[in-house]
């Protein structure tokens, strides 16, 4: 913290920071990586000295709402609330129900008077929420965590081309129009200007990976306002290494954890497995897929997977969906964690979980994966989208008996949620300091930050 905030009616007498963490979902209702990360931040802030935290999570149309208020409760949690948001515009990442935002969100934040409002995501809630918070609390500090490329890319924020699923390196109105011919280049430019206008109300941005930060800086966010803070894990147990029967037993158990979507590359993985010669695979090797939702994927993808499953035969086992609490037990059954995503990824929690349990990863050598997994140190990279190269890396893992131990030795313990909260608090204080250190160019109740 390099500056001292002035005493305002919103500031608290002591140096305790009151933080409101706003998430696009509550992990009790939606168990995604970003939801867990935002909730862990809330828990970490609560348990950290010098901070208080309140958690507000968005719920959507599938959740029954009250008639008179968009605010709803969470059982047995006094410092948590839900906010019912509907009328969401996916293209503009916008919430057209500004009436609820104006009345309920505004009222709530004015009552809570947080020093920091931290949007851990805004999907479903709409970027207009930033405007509501800024106008309600002109002196509060607004932080936004960016989880993927949603603001840059209309294709689910993946920065992957529609149709071919080729990696996209730079978004532009015309390139985006190429992915969505029904949307004009002008509309993509308007989308960008609209979202950037809303982001101008934020004081700082957090990305869990350097890769993501660089992409957003390239897109137009001021780089000096972006801080890279890895999400923290809140997993007390650790899985022991799988016990081998004898000296000939191999580290030959591979696992995939995650949704079976086209972006996660499970088709690449299956293709790679069926390419490995029987003489290398032998009887002891196996791939276990922990995850589901295949039935929700496009027909063509399901058919492709079905064809690959037929080819892989009994080399692959499907364990179905799992709960986070099962992770130590599941990890104890496997040696290698595979992450064959064909999109960039940001900072997938499975990397931290694998490292937490001492499992080396074999992952696509792109984006957040390449950043988080160091090739030859704590895991192996393969050429993204290449089943041949993945097969080679898996072959190497099966044939090189020392590899697993050497990579395991290279694994660094990932950050805990408390470490993460501490990093955030440090960032909050630095941003608050920066806000009050320099003279404000714009006077009045609507303040311009970025």
């Amino acid at each position, binding site marked *: 913290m390099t500056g001292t905030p002035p005493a305002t009616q919103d500031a608290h007498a002591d140096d305790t920071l009151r933080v409101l963490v706003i998430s696009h979902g509550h992990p009790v209702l939606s168990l995604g990586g970003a939801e867990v990360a935002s909730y862990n931040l809330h828990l970490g802030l609560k348990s950290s000295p010098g901070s208080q935290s309140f958690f507000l999570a968005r719920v959507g149309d599938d959740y029954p709402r009250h008639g008179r208020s968009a605010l709803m409760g969470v059982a047995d949690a006094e410092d948590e609330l839900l906010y019912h948001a509907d009328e969401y515009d996916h293209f503009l990442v*916008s919430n057209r129900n500004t*009436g609820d935002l104006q009345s309920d969100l505004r009222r709530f934040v004015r009552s809570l008077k947080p020093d920091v409002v931290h949007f851990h995501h805004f999907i479903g809630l709409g970027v207009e929420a930033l*405007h509501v918070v800024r106008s309600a609390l002109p002196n509060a500090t607004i932080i936004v965590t960016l989880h993927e490329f949603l603001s840059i890319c209309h294709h689910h924020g993946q920065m992957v081309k529609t149709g071919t699923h080729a990696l996209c390196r730079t978004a*532009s109105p015309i390139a985006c129009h190429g992915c969505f011919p029904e949307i004009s*280049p002008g509309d993509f*430019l308007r989308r960008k*200007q609209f979202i950037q206008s809303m982001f101008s109300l934020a004081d700082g941005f957090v990305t869990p990976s350097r890769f993501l930060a660089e992409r957003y800086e390239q897109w137009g966010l001021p780089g000096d306002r972006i801080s890279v803070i890895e999400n923290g894990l809140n997993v007390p147990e650790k899985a022991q290494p799988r016990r081998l029967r004898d000296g000939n037993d191999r580290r030959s158990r591979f696992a995939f954890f995650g949704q079976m979507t086209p972006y996660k590359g499970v088709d690449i993985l299956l293709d790679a497995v069926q390419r490995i010669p029987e003489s290398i695979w032998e009887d002891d090797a196996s791939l276990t897929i922990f995850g589901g939702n295949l039935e929700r994927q496009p027909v063509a993808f399901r058919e492709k997977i079905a064809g690959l499953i037929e080819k892989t035969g009994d080399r692959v086992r499907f364990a179905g969906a799992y709960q986070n609490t099962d992770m130590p037990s599941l990890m104890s059954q496997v040696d290698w964690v595979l992450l064959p995503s064909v999109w960039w990824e940001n900072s997938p929690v499975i990397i931290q979980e694998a490292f937490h349990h001492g499992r080396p990863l074999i992952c696509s050598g792109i984006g957040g994966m390449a950043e988080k997994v160091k090739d030859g140190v704590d895991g192996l990279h393969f050429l993204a989208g290449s089943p041949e190269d993945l097969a080679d890396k898996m072959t190497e893992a099966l044939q090189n008996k020392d590899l697993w131990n050497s990579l395991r030795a290279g694994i660094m313990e990932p950050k805990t949620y408390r470490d993460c909260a501490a990093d955030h608090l440090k960032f909050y204080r630095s941003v608050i300091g920066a806000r009050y250190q320099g003279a404000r160019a*714009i006077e009045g109740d609507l303040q311009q930050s970025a």
Partner: protein
Amino acid sequence: MEPVVTLEGAKRLPDTSVEHKKLAGEAGDWPDAVLPSDGRSVLCTAVDRDTILLAGVGDAFARNLQAVLNEDPKVTVPCTVVSLTAGANRDGAPAPFVAILSLDSVAVPRLERVTIRSKGHSHPYAIKYGPVAFDVFVGLVSEAVSQKEASVVEALIDALIAANSEVKNQAVAAKLVMHVARRDGYVEMLGQFDEGDYYIQGWSKEPPLGRNRVFVFDGALRVADLSCCLFERKDTGGKAPGFAGILDKVDGVGASAIRSLFFRGRSGWNKVDVHEKGTVSPARALPGHLRALLPRLNASGGARAKLEKASQRFDGRESVSELDVPVRIGVDFCAATNCGSVLISGWLLNPEDHAEAVYLRAGERSSRLDRAWTTQNRPDVTDTFEDLSPFLGEATARDRHGFLAFLPDMGGILEDKPYLEVVLRDGRSAYAPIALGRTSLRTALRRLVAGLDPTIASATDIIERQFLPLLGAVSLSEPTVAEVTDVSPIPDAPSTSIVIGSDGSIDKLRTLLPVLALDPYLRGTPIVVCAAETAIDEQFQEIARLGSFYGLALRIVRADKVEDTLDAIQAGLQVAPSETVVCLGSGVVPLGPGWLETLLAEFRKHDEGCVVTPTVLYEDETIRWAGTWIDRDGEAHVLKQHYVGYPRRTLMGAEASEVAAAPFDCCVVSKTAFLAAGGFARNYLGTDEKGLDASLKLRIAGVKSYWVPQIEMVHPEDGQGSERLWHKLVGQHDRKQFEHLWRGRLGALKEGLQ
């Protein structure tokens, strides 16, 4: 076909007929009256105030003569004379006659003498008796000529309604008919075709077979021709055959207004009333009904042919595809415009030349399409129907099936369901109903062009040759303010306001208004959003929501006669709350906050008497507009934009400078100066040349244009790929229009620049 009502169930209509009406005139009591046979006097009766009948004997007069009343040559009236055959005991005696005098408005206080002029001679007659009652008159005449009263009256009527007879005579005949007609049967079903003629069906003991001149009563009697066939019907017990006929159109009379028909039967004039349970069928139901009835109709030459033809009229179904000859038709686009015209494009497959004509019809409105259209190649139509005709499979097959037509004077076409009629050379017709939308002429053309194959359309150059001149000729009105609503308070006398001309896209406002709202340098600046009435009607709540949410000082303007963003800006300017106005098209995207301050600084530098414009980029950061200069091109002066299409970095280091003209995508201007210069011209299709045109008009008025290169706004090339042809055509048209208007004046303007 089943009759609509039976005789047994029939009730007489309330007595609305005129047969018992007293004829006008004061008839005296003349018990001794006879038809004068002296050749010097006549018997007289008055049919009404304007019509009198005289009877006497004399020369065999011609039918249409003149008569002098009371020996005053100034009072001469038309006289129709009907010569009658004398009775048996009057051999060699002068022929009796009845003369019908139409007094019209001639004032004759007391008629005493009538002089009939015939063949250069005058035949004076004194009024001997009269006026007697009409019945007495007819009785005395029939007694003298040994004919039935009815035949005397019929002879009069025949003379009066003979071909080419005057309307006045027909009116007189009608009065006589009403007097003598007997009720005979009923009309049970009638309806009016789109063409205006009527289908009439009923029963009568003496039905009018073939083509007859009849009287139609709708409160007044009118003459029309009825072509009628008979058919047997059992429900009358053999006493009265059915009749079905086509009655010619009577102007201003709808089918439901017809109450009776009068026609001459074997034994005199008859009257058939429309039955109180009679059915008035819609036009579309009549052909099918007729087709069902045709097998039962007797053969009666022309009348049957007419009914057969009527049975083939449009009944709402598409029937072109059922033709047994290779003729097919399709419509790709059809719209009625708000200036009363119709724009239509489609194709007619006619490889063997069976089709003779194509009409666009709706109700009574009709326009011959094939004489108005311009054809174009449609190889896709040839391919689709390759098997329909051997001519289509040939390598040299003609592909010119497409058509485009602009039909003026089709106002009100939407009141009826429009359809196409294809008339074959063998006399048959087939039909294709069409869906017709309503829009402005420009929008209609834009949509039509969007549906065209660009390669075909450019090759034929059809749009430019056919439709752009038409558009140029259409006079469009100035945009006007219809309604102004302040959704939040507008500050008193603000120094600047922003007028956004909306193109009707709410999505653009959904992004532009927040971007402006979150620009801290614009805080408190009133914003006027103006759009066409239809757009505001749909979007008012959404625009107001945005204004309220972002705390904007927002005025919403509903404007009429708005065709594009510049029209909307012009209307919005009229109600802008400040003298200094920032014009902004809704498609323009600011790239960041603070842009206005620099523009305003330049504006003030020139005493606020100028137009100040930033650089305008495309969405790919190439230059859309960065200054316009007048250059010499040979002997002529032209307007040139040097940097169009270049990367934005081309302008690095450029400084603000005067330019010849500026667009209005984004500019600062004085409201009064702009409106005083006349606003935007009405004869451009796009906004680029339209804006430059307006700024040149401002320059002539002493208001110069300045370009501020360091401020950049983006105006993306909006519109779908399908509109590429439209944009190309608009560009071609507008450049020609601009050149036509300004080429000769640019030299003088360049002098002013220097």
